């Protein structure tokens, strides 16, 4: 039965319903299962926003697989002036000789992903591919081949299905568009193209 509960105040509309997300994630899982039928994929995700996608993707993969997580500091008010990226949680298992699939929730500029792939490649996996759920190619600065991509998304701030705004809305089963004019300073909305 469709969910008819009202949207949270700061969400303008649903971009991808729970059903749409589940269907696309199942397709990605099926593709990975087929491509890695003779291998054992090792999925790696970067905490935290990938956890919901990772949980669903893992369950849609029908072949033996393993999973691990990594966490890094991201650029922001608390990390400005502190040098570069820091690993705040390293992988628990070595990846040398393994068939790694890096799983990411959103890719836009590619800066974070580029940094992480550089780290992973140095650890000499047998292969390294990328699976992303939400791709924002219009913001890309670093070109990165994507073996698996769920949706090309419009240039809006998305929340839900693991994605947050100030740590809110990660739990929503759908992806919604944030009302930017409600959460950002009014002046920001002037520049909308």
């Amino acid at each position, binding site marked *: 039965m469709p969910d008819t509960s009202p949207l949270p105040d700061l969400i303008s509309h649903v971009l991808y319903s729970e059903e749409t997300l589940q269907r696309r994630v199942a397709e990605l899982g099926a593709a990975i299962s087929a491509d890695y039928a003779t291998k054992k994929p090792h999925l790696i995700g970067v905490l935290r926003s990938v956890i919901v996608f990772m949980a669903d993707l893992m369950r849609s993969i029908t072949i033996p697989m393993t999973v691990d997580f990594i966490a890094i500091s*991201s*650029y*922001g*008010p608390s*990390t*400005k002036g502190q*040098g*570069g*990226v820091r690993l705040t949680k390293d992988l628990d298992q070595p990846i040398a000789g393994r068939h790694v699939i890096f799983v990411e929730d959103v890719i*836009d*500029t590619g*800066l*974070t992903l*580029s*940094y992480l792939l*550089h780290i992973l490649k140095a650890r000499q996996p047998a292969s390294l591919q990328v699976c992303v759920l939400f791709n924002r190619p*219009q*913001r*890309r*600065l*670093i*070109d990165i081949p994507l073996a698996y991509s769920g949706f090309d998304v419009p*240039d809006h*701030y998305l929340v839900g299905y693991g994605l947050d705004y*100030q740590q809110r809305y990660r739990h929503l089963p759908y992806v919604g568009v944030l009302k*930017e004019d409600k959460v*950002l*300073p009014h*002046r*920001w909305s*002037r*520049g*909308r*193209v």
Partner: protein
Amino acid sequence: MMTTEGSERQPPRFSHPAEAEFARILDFYGIPWEYEPHTFPLAWDEQGRVTEAFSPDFYLPQQGLYVELTTMQPHLVTKKNRKLRRFRELYPDVPIKLLKRRDIRGLLLKYGLEEESHVVLDNPPSGEQVKQDA
């Protein structure tokens, strides 16, 4: 293409806070960059002298990509868009990415820099208009 010798070895004097913030983001993620290292002629007079040129704000050598930033309101970017069109006509093999006001805003929001956005997007230093349209 003309080159500004040694520009990457000197601490650059950014002409806009958005450029400084963008450079800090690139530094954080270990992406090498150069600030306005190259100038591309866009027009010449009858004697072959350059009458119009364009210096993209950033060059990312590992990507071979030029990046131009603009914080101007969309209705004010006509001249810049014309320059970019001419640039792409003359140098079709040179990759360039234009980060518009909305792109910069999205980047700042992504990194939780809402307060900084006031400085970057709404309080341009004097002379910015001249520089950005140049």
